[in-house]
């Protein structure tokens, strides 16, 4: 039993990663409007009454996409500006870490010679 459970434990992170990747691809696929436009064209070709429903779907998708974009965090900057900001934050953390380390390693009992 124990030998059987060990590989499972090692597989779990991979499964999680796969799930995340799948979620991301679903989100990315969901960003396209072409399938909906294609469905509308098909309905128009068939003179189907579903065209109005498809048109409403397309409209609601545009609205939901706008809402999603407005709620997304971190896209107020361009990627280059964001990278610069990220870099400066990393530098800040590093500098502060070094400063703390310097403070902690100070020799408190060093007597200055006159």
């Amino acid at each position, binding site marked *: 039993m124990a030998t059987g459970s060990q590989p499972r434990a090692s597989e779990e992170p991979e499964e999680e990663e796969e799930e995340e990747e799948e979620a*991301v691809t679903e*989100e*990315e696929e969901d*960003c*396209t*409007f*072409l399938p909906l*436009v294609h469905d*509308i*064209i098909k309905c*128009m070709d068939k003179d189907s009454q579903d065209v109005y429903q498809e*048109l409403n779907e*397309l409209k609601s998708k*545009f609205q939901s*996409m*706008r809402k999603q*974009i*407005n709620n*997304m*965090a*971190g*896209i*107020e*900057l*361009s*990627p*280059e*500006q*964001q*990278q610069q*900001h*990220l870099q400066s*934050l*990393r530098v*800040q*953390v590093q500098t*502060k*870490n070094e*400063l*703390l380390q310097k*403070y*902690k390693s100070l020799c*408190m009992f060093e007597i200055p010679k006159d």
Partner: protein
Amino acid sequence: MAATEKSTKEKLLCVLDDLEVLSRELIELLALSRSQKVSQPGEENQILELLIQKDGEFQELMKVAFSQGKVHQEMQLLEKEVEKRDSDIQQLQKQLKEAEHILATAVYQAKEKLKSIDKARKGSISSEELIKYAHRISASNAVCAPLTWVPGDPRRPYPTDLEMRSGLLGQMSNLPTNGVNGHLPGDALAAGRLPDVLAPQYPWQSNDISMNMLPPNHSNDFLMESLGPNKENEDDVEVMSTDSSSSSSDSD
């Protein structure tokens, strides 16, 4: 240049607007062509190509936006870390300030002690000298009478008249160091040179030592209080005053 500085959000909304406009145009065009039975494939294809291009652009921008969201999470973590480090540094600075204050006080006190040590070293007196001085005092019978002392012995158990007058007490009371030739009133009284009015108040047998030790303006009551009731003192004074008389007789 301005386009490169445009934020991802603005780009996304812009492309989304384009997509909406293009899809509407395409659908309207198709609907028009279906209703009028007139096809304009060139224009439809052009709009469709544009739509496909914008859709691809939109998807790419959405990928960038998702990656920027992840970077944003990382940045938030870093900002929290920076805040934590700031509070740590402030705490440490506060502690260092307190330590500096304590150390400054300690250094000041230590410097004061060093100053006093230096001062003591500069004015140091060797123990040998102190012992020699103690011997000198005890040898001169300044603190007690010699064991074999008898009336008429020139050795005296107290400082001499001149020594008292040249000392600090004598200087404080402005006792004249000359004129009486180093003699105290007791001696003078014994020699019969003081007025008779003083004689009953300061009989030299009992008060001579007190007169030697105190300034002349001291009250007589104190002398009587401190010396009068004590029999031993009386004996001592008698013995010492006898010595005084002998000294006065010596000086005479």
